[in-house]
């Protein structure tokens, strides 16, 4: 296990204490030795990684290195990687090697980071447990009988297990924050549009957002700096001046910071131990000079039905492109075009994906559009309005990331609606397009608990600074899973 931060790895490279090839070989050896019990990677690209590591070492020798040059990182398998399998956790794309890189991948390549492999995920990012992957479930390094969270569970488990220092993730309804909470790492879901979605395989286009996952807020700031930029090839990408997120970590004082605490996040369904951990973390912020204020986000409960109408509706249209004609899985010996479509899709998609396509198709069908889809989009505006009202009197909002700690593998697979309730504190952030992050705040029954911080649009710097200041005063993000499962 290598627990060095990105800054520490960068410094070791800059000072010649190690090389990118050595770091990459060590990471490959860790994956080889440890990932059998985790299944956090779908694809490991040893040859490509070592080639990039040699190029990075040459770049460092030329004095042309940036802070990420030479550091091995992993990408969630939702990001297209040129010539390297990009499956999105699905049989549908098992043999797909894209002819281009996602913008996020290209930006990390430009920064000189070494792409070591692609991490496991719920198929097409649909899931809260990483049990919906065609490549098998991923395990939580803290307790291998438990889920790592989904859908970026592979990235979270790879970091928590010490295989890599950092990875990318995507968050449509909490898929960066929830696995970060379950695995005891730090993850940031940026403002919608801050990070390019080009080459990020679409699930629900008005909600999907890529972001960084790492051990600390400081590392997330470094990663976000590499990821965030306007992309003229993504029509949802916003034009903003570049920000120095690392430099900003010290610029936002906690003195006088107004933290809103939504009463709806501390009601029925929240585990008592998780509530106690979050209370303690909030007191720590008070000790740093922040003030706490109880607020209300009255439509929190409605975020679940609104999300589970909107996301499947968008998914049903996005996934219509998988027809067995242009790319992806094609069934054997189709008898006609209809058979080609239906059998390719039935064979290529797993149960949860098919269920969401069906639900989305129903929600968009004639006669039900107004009752479901339009209604959900109206409720979405009300939810966004609740946040806007809250932010008139507070700077950030804090609460639990999840109602409980990581649950047992298989515990909720037969009841999709029970699984959907896991996302109660994360979904509304995506509906409103806000930035939010999860950071380790303590433990319950030897399992990590995540604190969620929510900010106003494009206020990532303040969120990262708040998380960083907390991490300067605590060591929850430095705790490591033991080699033996907890009872």
């Amino acid at each position, binding site marked *: 296990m290598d627990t060095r931060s990105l800054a520490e790895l960068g410094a070791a490279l800059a000072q010649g204490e190690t090389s990118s090839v050595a770091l990459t070989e060590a990471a490959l050896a860790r994956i080889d030795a440890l990932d059998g019990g985790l299944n956090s990677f779908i694809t490991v690209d040893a040859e490509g990684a070592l080639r990039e590591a040699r190029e990075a070492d040459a770049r460092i020798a030329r004095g042309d290195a940036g802070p990420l040059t030479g550091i091995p990182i992993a990408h969630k398998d939702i990001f297209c990687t040129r010539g390297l399998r990009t499956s999105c956790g699905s049989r549908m794309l098992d043999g797909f090697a894209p002819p281009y890189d996602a913008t996020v991948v290209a930006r990390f390549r430009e920064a000189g980071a070494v792409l070591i492999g692609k991490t496991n995920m719920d198929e097409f990012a649909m899931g809260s447990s990483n049990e919906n992957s065609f490549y098998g479930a991923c395990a939580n390094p803290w307790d291998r009988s438990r889920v790592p969270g989904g859908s970026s569970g592979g990235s979270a488990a790879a970091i928590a297990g010490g295989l890599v220092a950092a990875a990318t993730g995507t968050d449509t309804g909490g898929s960066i924050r929830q696995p970060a909470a379950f695995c005891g790492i730090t993850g940031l879901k940026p403002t919608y549009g801050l990070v390019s979605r080009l080459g990020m395989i679409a699930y629900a286009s008005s909600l999907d957002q890529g972001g960084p996952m790492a051990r600390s807020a400081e590392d997330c700031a470094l990663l976000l700096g590499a990821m965030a930029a306007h992309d003229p090839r993504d029509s949802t990408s916003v034009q903003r001046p570049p920000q120095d997120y690392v430099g900003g970590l010290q610029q936002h004082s906690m003195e006088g910071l107004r933290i809103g605490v939504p009463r709806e996040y501390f009601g029925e369904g929240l585990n008592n131990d998780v509530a106690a951990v979050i209370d303690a973390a909030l007191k720590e912020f008070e000790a740093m000079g922040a003030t706490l204020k109880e607020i209300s986000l009255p439509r929190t409960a409605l975020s679940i039905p609104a999300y589970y109408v909107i996301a499947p509706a968008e998914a049903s249209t996005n996934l219509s492109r998988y027809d067995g*004609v242009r790319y992806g*899985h094609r069934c054997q010996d189709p*008898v006609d*075009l209809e058979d080609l479509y239906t059998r390719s899709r039935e064979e290529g*998609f797993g149960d949860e994906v098919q269920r969401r396509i*069906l639900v989305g198709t129903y*929600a968009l069908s004639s006669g039900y559009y107004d009752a*479901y889809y339009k209604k959900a989009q*109206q409720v979405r505006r009300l939810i966004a309005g609740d946040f806007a009202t809250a932010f008139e009197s507070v700077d950030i909002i804090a609460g639990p990331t999840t109602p409980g700690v990581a649950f047992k593998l298989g515990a909720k697979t037969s009841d999709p609606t029970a699984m959907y309730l896991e996302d109660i504190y994360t979904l509304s952030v995506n509906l409103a397009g806000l930035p939010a992050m999860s950071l380790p705040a303590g433990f319950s029954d030897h399992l990590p608990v995540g604190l969620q911080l929510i900010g106003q649009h494009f206020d990532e710097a303040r969120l990262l600074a708040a998380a960083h200041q907390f991490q300067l005063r605590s060591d929850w993000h430095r705790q490591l899973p033991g080699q033996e499962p907890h009872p």
Partner: protein
Amino acid sequence: MSVSGDTIREIAQLARLRVEEDELPALTGNFNAILDLFEQLQAAPTDGVEPMANPLDARQTLRDDVVTESNQRDSLQSTAPLTENGLYLVPRVVD
């Protein structure tokens, strides 16, 4: 609101998915549980509320109507299951 197995079959046809008969009871049960969840939305008064399609209320970004991409047919078709002479092959659709 609840739906029958027949409705699920119709939706599956629209979505170009095939539902096996032995999967239908469980799928119908899960589907109706999800629809029950959706019914909660009806409790929210939304008269006069504009639907929100983009969380930033951003308008579609348009670009000048000029060619910006080179011809990438060969590389894009390299990932296709079946092609011939630059065309995608599918089962015969006309006699």
